[in-house]
């Protein structure tokens, strides 16, 4: 019991929220492309590019938020490339996503060597990390409050964005049009909705969130860039998106589960278990969830389609 108590304590909760944030941010980005009917395997690469350019931007501008902005812009460039190939040139989503992931991996290593002369990672005192917040009232609420009141800002934003993204997708015209473009492209076209444009917008929004996720990785908890530091989080996000069908609330729960697995694996390493075995935990949990939850989602998609088409017709009438 004592072991359990040392594993499951306050710091595990705060570690869970911390490790959930990057997966959640990138998965929220993916909700837009998912709703727009694009299978976006390129999240991983967008996130990695975001992480790299956030570090670069942070050094250039000597400001953490400057770094975040540049990381986000870079990720959006990758996202735009993705949508140009997939939507405009009608290339296969999996192939393009895969190519962009490979591109991101190679490009970040190449640029690291060219700019910093090092292989593998960028560690420098010139990188300005994101500041920790101090939320007065929360911080006073005991040890849990202390942990929850002093995260870096992107962690809070990640959870707030769940609501924001939900509103955009389900309560705005843009969200409605994105959904219809994804669910019934032919119907969307006949109602005068430019499906291609909607998919480009969805992809750019996705890039924005993936860039934030990347910036959180390299400027949030630790301030460094390491080669392939996204280590599959983008793919975990894709797994969440598959079984949540892009619903932001389900995305939140899926990401919390993976964040918990991630935090738990970090914690278990201190107990003398093989670090290699322990590191497999998040991937195994993701795979398990993917396998158990993926069947029987098709009826849901169809029902949603009928509902959103009705909404559009009502709007037109």
């Amino acid at each position, binding site marked *: 019991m004592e072991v359990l108590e040392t594993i499951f304590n306050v710091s595990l909760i705060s570690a869970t929220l911390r490790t959930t944030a990057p997966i959640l941010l990138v998965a929220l980005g993916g909700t837009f492309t998912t709703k727009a009917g694009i*299978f976006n395997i390129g999240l991983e690469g967008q996130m990695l590019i975001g992480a790299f350019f956030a570090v670069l931007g942070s050094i250039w501008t000597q400001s953490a938020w400057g770094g975040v902005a540049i990381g986000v812009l870079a990720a959006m460039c990758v996202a735009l490339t993705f949508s140009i190939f997939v939507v405009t040139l009608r290339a296969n*989503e999996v192939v393009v996503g895969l*190519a962009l992931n490979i*591109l991101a991996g*190679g490009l970040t290593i190449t640029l690291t060597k060219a700019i910093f002369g090092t292989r593998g990672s960028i560690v420098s005192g010139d990188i300005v990390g994101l500041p920790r917040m101090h939320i007065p009232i929360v911080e006073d609420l005991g040890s849990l409050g202390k942990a929850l009141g002093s995260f870096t800002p992107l962690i809070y934003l990640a959870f707030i964005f769940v609501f924001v993204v939900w509103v955009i997708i389900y309560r705005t015209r843009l969200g409605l049009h994105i959904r219809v473009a994804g669910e019934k492209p032919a119907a969307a076209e006949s109602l005068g909705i430019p499906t291609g444009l909607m998919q480009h917008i969805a992809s750019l929004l996705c890039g924005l969130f993936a860039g934030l996720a990347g910036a959180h990785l390299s400027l949030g908890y630790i301030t460094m860039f390491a080669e392939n530091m996204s280590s599959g989080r983008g793919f975990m996000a894709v*797994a969440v998106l*598959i079984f949540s*069908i892009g619903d932001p609330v389900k995305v939140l729960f899926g990401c919390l589960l993976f964040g918990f697995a991630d935090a738990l694996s970090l914690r278990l390493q201190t107990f003398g278990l093989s670090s290699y*075995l322990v590191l497999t935990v998040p991937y195994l949990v993701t795979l398990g969830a993917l396998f158990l939850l993926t069947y029987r989602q098709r009826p849901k998609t169809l029902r949603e389609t009928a509902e959103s088409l009705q909404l559009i017709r009502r709007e037109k009438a």
Partner: protein
Amino acid sequence: MSTEADTTPTARAGRQLPAWLEGLLGQMVALVIAIIGGGIIVMLVGEDPILVFTTLLRGAFGSSERIAGSLLQATPIIIAGVAACIALRGGLFNIGVEGQLYMGGFAAAFVGFQFALPAGLHMVVALAAAVVAGGLWILIPAFFRARFGTNEVVSTILSNYVAILLTSYLTIDVFKRPGGWSETAPIATTAYLPQLFDFSRLNFGLFIGLALAVGFHLFLTRTSTGYEMNTMGSNMKFAEYGGIPVRRNILIVLLCSGAVGGLAGGVETLGVHHRFMEGFAPGFGFDGVIAALLANGSPIGVIFTAIFFGALRAGSLLMEVETNASREVITVFQAFIILCVSAQVLLRRRRDSNQGERRWRF
């Protein structure tokens, strides 16, 4: 290519090229665009693109040792490429070749250092173990894809991470050679794949790769099962209406693909390293997948694209020594090639994608 295209207004009579030539021309155009793009990246990095490309070429083909080196690098890519081709031709993606390769590599090494068997037989058993390990590694994703339609792209990608960590665990925490560095004990010489020359580690594995590619080509073109598989690959719905047992075939196709992926790792272990090392074959599985995509799923094409990528790898080693560019430049270059090919391939196939519903919708 069906004859339907000929009736569309865009196809001009009298200027038709055979499908394979049209395809080859497309790949060439993609290659030229990618070379230009790669050159721009090299310039951005502050290097002379001409110098980088000539160094690459010299590193890949400068002497008979270097040519053998290129073929040595190409060997696992050919086998991994055939593995990816098997899935692609069945209308599926196996992005998990990397993981299967690691599992196969470890299984072969395990048989190699754990058992004592007569020469030759030992090698065959070790390769068989690699095949079984690769097949087992894709079994669960394959089963769920066949039974429930669970997306195999994500499940196979995620299994890569598990495979790499698991083999690292087995190598370092369980079977580490005392005093060695992140590696198992060496395998017995009875399990070695024979080397072809004494100046290079190039080995018999190359012929295994070539035989697999030619064999799969013959299977696709000469057998009715191959025809059935092709039908399933080009249109799964149609295949189902046509009475082809699609679910069962998905399982078989993915298992075969995984088994060949495992074999790639076994060949690398028995032919090159003679032990299992952590990170022993970085990226060979992914290179195989890209080689298969660049070859548009053709196993004969994979021989050439894999040798091309092997040469790039071999050349990049010299390039990294002699210039300031890092060897990952070639990864960027490969990504450019795939992007260019993906765009033009689908331009040519636009009519197909207009007909059927796109597969990746959920």
